[in-house]
């Protein structure tokens, strides 16, 4: 019996809304827009946040990455036209850290030589970056071994001319040949391929987001990929000098190490370690030619940013829903006024005040829930369009859909209650006389 009541009330509500299609649609727009924006913005925000977290995670939350930085002009020798500027991290730094600072799991010194060419037989040459490092590099950076092996301690000890190549490089260089145990040539020397590594499993690797927070040795700007050689080999085979042109004069720079990656045991030790490293290096350097990147901090920063982002988005959405709700209340008040006579008739026929409230509240709820559903559908489409055209990752969470639906129901009840109350409290006799 109650179900009949509900069904009949719902049917009446739908009929009533359908009869005023244009008015109903316009009224719903507020809710539709509000819900749509909640879902779309949350999806974009979630996608961006996840992309950021992925990128940062690849740097390793227990890693601290000390990077060589070119010191500002003032701190170098001035007035000389051609000088060798030496700056940045050195082998001495790495030794010092290794010997004097406790609680470090691994230290990985890294030498990067950018924009090199590598050849294989008579195949077209491929632009690569050479990374000279140690075998335990794999403990700090997520490299995925596809073929063979990574560099070994023996390689390091004997300064072997071996290398490990990125799979992209292998693909472009060897084409259909098997890269294993082949010799490739760069800067006049041959290196034997002992392994192939792939990009770490990440969907966000190539997105624009990755650029600022690149994984320690992510290639950029024109090179196809990396090849890894033992650090000792790099030291003796590749010059540490590089030329650069600035403000008309040519200067030559000398850098020993581009990076030193330090890994600690747990997240709690990260920040204290940063201070220790800073103090320790300050003693060894008289210029500020390095800076320390702390992925953990970046992660926390990203989380904070995401929280603020959500609050701002949430506020915008809340305001639009509020405005939508007020619009609905306005329309319902007008509807109630229009149907004064009808309300009087129903009351005369035995409707109690609560029956009238239920009738008009259901109509309002129907409006907001329909608007909510349309908003959800639209809101779910937009992230797909954004991902397709804007190449930004988006994630639609079930939680946001439930939230959006719940909010539209709440708005319906909140803004429908007053008009329904007004309707119920009209004097039947006056209402019957109306119009």
């Amino acid at each position, binding site marked *: *019996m109650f179900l009949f009541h509900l069904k009949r009330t719902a049917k009446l509500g739908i009929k009533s809304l359908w009869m005023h299609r244009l008015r109903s649609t316009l009224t719903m727009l507020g809710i539709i827009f509000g819900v749509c924006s909640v879902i779309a913005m949350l999806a974009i925000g979630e996608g961006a946040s996840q992309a950021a977290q992925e990128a940062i995670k690849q740097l390793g939350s227990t890693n601290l990455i000390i990077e060589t930085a070119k010191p500002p002009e003032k701190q170098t020798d001035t007035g000389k036209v051609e000088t060798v500027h030496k700056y940045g991290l050195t082998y001495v730094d790495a030794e010092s850290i290794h010997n004097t600072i406790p609680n470090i799991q691994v230290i990985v010194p890294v030498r990067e030589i950018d924009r090199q060419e590598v050849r294989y037989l008579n195949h077209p040459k491929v632009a690569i970056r050479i990374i000279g490092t140690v075998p335990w590099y794999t403990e700090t950076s997520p490299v995925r071994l596809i073929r063979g092996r990574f560099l070994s301690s023996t390689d390091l000890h004997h300064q072997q001319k071996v290398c490990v190549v990125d799979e992209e490089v292998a693909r472009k260089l060897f084409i259909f040949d098997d890269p294993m145990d082949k010799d490739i040539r760069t800067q006049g020397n041959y290196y034997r391929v002992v392994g192939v590594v792939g990009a770490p499993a990440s969907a966000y690797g190539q997105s624009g987001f990755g650029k600022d927070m690149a994984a320690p040795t992510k290639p950029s700007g024109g090179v196809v990929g990396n090849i890894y050689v033992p650090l000792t080999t790099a030291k003796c085979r590749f010059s540490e000098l590089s030329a650069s042109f600035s403000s008309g004069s040519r200067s030559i720079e000398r850098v020993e190490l581009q990076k030193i990656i330090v890994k600690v045991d747990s997240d709690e030790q990260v920040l204290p370690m940063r201070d220790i490293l800073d103090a320790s290096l300050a003693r060894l350097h008289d210029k500020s030619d390095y800076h320390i990147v702390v992925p953990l901090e970046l992660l926390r920063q990203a989380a904070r940013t995401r929280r603020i982002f959500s609050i701002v988005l949430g506020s915008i959405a809340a305001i639009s829903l509020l405005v939508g709700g007020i619009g609905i209340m306005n329309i319902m008040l007008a509807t109630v006024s229009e149907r004064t006579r009808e309300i009087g008739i129903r009351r005369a*026929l*035995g*409707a109690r005040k609560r029956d009238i409230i239920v009738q008009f509240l259901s109509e309002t709820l129907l409006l907001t829930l329909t608007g909510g559903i349309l908003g959800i559908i639209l809101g779910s489409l937009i992230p797909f369009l954004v991902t397709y055209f804007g190449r930004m990752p988006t994630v639609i969470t079930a939680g946001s859909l439930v939230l959006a639906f719940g909010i539209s129901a709440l708005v319906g009840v909140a803004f429908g209650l007053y008009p329904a109350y007004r309707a119920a409290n009209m004097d039947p*006799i006056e209402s019957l006389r109306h119009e």
Partner: protein
Amino acid sequence: MAVVDTRKLCKTYKIGSVQLPALCDVNLKIEQGQYIAIMGPSGSGKSTLLNLLGCLDRPTSGQYWLGERDVSQLDDDELSLIRGKHIGFIFQSYNLIGQLNVIENIELPMFYQGFSEEASAEHARELAILVGLGDRIKHRPSELSGGQQQRVAIARALANDPLIILADEPTGNLDSESGTEILNILDRLHQQGKTLIAVTHDDSIAARAERTIHLFDGRIKQ
């Protein structure tokens, strides 16, 4: 048994600080199955009496015994229930709900009393046939003539088998032919034992009623 028994019924309207007495000392007794006409010039309190008898309003003083209950001091919810169960209204301007069809209009009083879907539909159909509209049950009021609409109103008034049927100028908006049709139906209802109270200017109704009450200045003219 008296179906309607008013004792010293009084209604005074308060407009701002002014008191407007509309009805005074009305003692009316109507037995079951009687056909009563209430007549009087405008301003005589006809509408007020109609509203009180129809439980749409409460008296300022006095008692109104409807059936076995004094309904004069009931609250809004209880009055609504009484109206729905025991009173059938027929208005001058029919007062059907435009968005509902004939059957749905007739069902409405049953809907508010909580009857099941099937029972309501069945009963409504019978009533539609009773008033001669069996072939138009899916029509909307806008597709019916005045006389047909009033017939729907009559069927609706009968829906919950009320104690009294209150008609307010039932033929006021109808031409003489349709009006006569309606009055014939009311006669039939009377023959079937229904209690009818008609408030009207029309002498022809008074002629068909078994008793006429004359109101003048808020009192029953003796």
